[in-house]
């Protein structure tokens, strides 16, 4: 770059660029959402580290639980893997939903959020688009978990169809749950704080479920909690699907839970999105 970057020769270019007034045709809701989805993929492309970070946890958990606790919990590591893998499949994706809130918070603190908000587009597009981009991340992570499971000896009787249906169900669940974290992402001050708040929020739900162990040995009151925990519902449905049955009732309850979460947190997120003063206020 030289000192004449703008002046005087480039002055002409600048004028001609400014003169090019284009008919501003507003993109539709879908097209705007897909554009933001594309943005999420670009971020993934520039920083693939994100994916590895996200995968470390589930890989560690699968290996640790299978080989350390598997024998003790289910009699043999192979038996436990068969029980545990659908659970860790849900767990992996659910843990990733947290990063939706972190990412949104980052946009807010960077100020790019203001530019998006001042665009004449369908407002939820920014959020829906990043959720679409996240779906790609979720699918990648889920594929790694299933791949690892297969390598360790996990055999789903539901076959490819069962695994694919499980993935779809988990994506729907994750998409719904993400709205909780977009709400948090707009309320909490910094990206690190979002992570700090999300972890303790997620963990009780994750552990007070049938994800790691069969709830039969838990005290009655806890079993009651586990039974209505949306995580348990999802894990049970995924277990059945991978096992080759289609538990319509179970899936129905998962969808009800998803609808309830979206009904509360999507409007809340959009309200915050519309009114939130960003970092450079005053």
């Amino acid at each position, binding site marked *: 770059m030289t000192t004449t970057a*703008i002046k005087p020769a*480039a002055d002409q270019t600048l004028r001609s660029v400014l003169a090019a007034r*284009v008919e*501003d045709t507003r993109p539709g809701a879908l097209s705007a959402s897909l554009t933001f989805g594309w943005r999420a993929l670009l971020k993934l492309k520039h920083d693939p580290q994100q994916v590895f970070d996200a995968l470390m946890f589930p890989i560690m958990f699968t290996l640790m639980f299978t080989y350390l606790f598997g024998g003790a919990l289910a009699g043999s590591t192979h038996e436990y893997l068969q029980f545990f893998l659908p659970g860790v499949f849900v767990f992996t994706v659910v843990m990733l939903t947290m990063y939706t809130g972190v990412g949104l918070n980052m946009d807010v603190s960077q100020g790019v959020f203001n*530019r998006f908000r001042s*665009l004449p587009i369908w407002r939820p597009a920014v959020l829906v688009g990043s959720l679409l981009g996240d779906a790609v991340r979720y699918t990648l992570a889920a594929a790694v978990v299933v791949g690892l499971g297969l390598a360790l000896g996990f055999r789903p009787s539901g076959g490819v169809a069962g695994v694919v249906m499980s993935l779809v169900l988990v994506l729907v669940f994750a998409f719904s749950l993400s709205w909780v974290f977009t709400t948090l992402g707009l309320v909490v001050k910094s990206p690190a704080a979002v992570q700090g708040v999300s972890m303790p929020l997620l963990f009780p739900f994750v552990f007070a479920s049938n994800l790691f162990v069969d709830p039969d040995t838990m005290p009655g009151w806890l079993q009651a909690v586990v039974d209505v925990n949306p995580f348990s519902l999802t894990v049970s449905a995924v277990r059945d699907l991978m096992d080759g049955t289609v538990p319509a009732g179970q899936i129905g309850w998962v969808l009800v839970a998803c609808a309830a979460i979206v009904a509360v947190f999507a409007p809340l997120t959009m309200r915050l999105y519309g009114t939130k003063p960003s970092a450079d206020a005053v």
Partner: protein
Amino acid sequence: MILAIEAHRLVKSFGETRAVDGVDLAVRPGAVYGFLGPNGAGKTTTIRMLATLVEPDSGTARVLGHDVVRDADAVRRRVSLTGQFASVDEDLTGGENLVLLARLHGYSRARTGARADELLDAFGLSDAGARQVKTYSGGMRRRLDIAASLVVTPELMFLDEPTTGLDPRSRNQVWEIIRALVTDGTTVLLTTQYLEEADQLADRIAVVDRGRVIAEGTSGQLKASLGSGALHVRLGEPDRRTEAERVLSDALGVAVHLEPDPATLSATVSDPERVARALTELSRAEVPVTEFALGQPSLDEVFLELTGRPVEEAEEEEDAA
């Protein structure tokens, strides 16, 4: 004629702080309007209300004939805002940022790439277009930020302190861009902390303090109301400052201020003739002068004159509030 901006009694509070306390504005189209004031004067909040990012608590504003609350979408389609902090995606490349915005503005897939290249070229960023924005210098970032606001040339552009924190060369580049914008018919509302910047670019200036407009006019009018310039005199012997103050104020016919530097005095003057005479008086009194300068009043001096208190005090008050 439809005014570019028309605001009546705009008010916005954040908690206890009244950030904007009854701002009236009338900005004609096709010119640069300067919004001058110290940090915390309410410049950014005013701009954010006009750009539909924040709703006013009370008062009304019309931008290009559209109400900023009831008709926010129509306003958004016609204006763009470049904030104090670059609002571009640090993780993407410069080119990707522009393509993203071009798509969101409804450019066809085929035209987006060309538009992005065009803008990169015009803003001297062609070489950096494929690099992530987080590797950019401050000046490059600011230029990309402005380019991002011009994906569709707006009728009105809000520039919030566009040169704060830039080196002089980058600052000049941004000034060139603003001049080109106005020549092309865009109205620019510019906030700044620097009188020099407002003077260089703005056709009219509003001076803001504590959420109110305390003076308004062309740069010439403002300066005339303050006197044409500021005289700074530095003495060789600081202990003779009181004497110098008396000699100067007699000769100039205005109050002379004692600066924080114990050897320096300053005064706002309107007649350069009298300055020459005053300096002659000083040398006749054998008060040694090591340095003198007659320049445009600084924002500090404008402020002192208009509010009776220096800028730092105004900023401290804001912090305390």
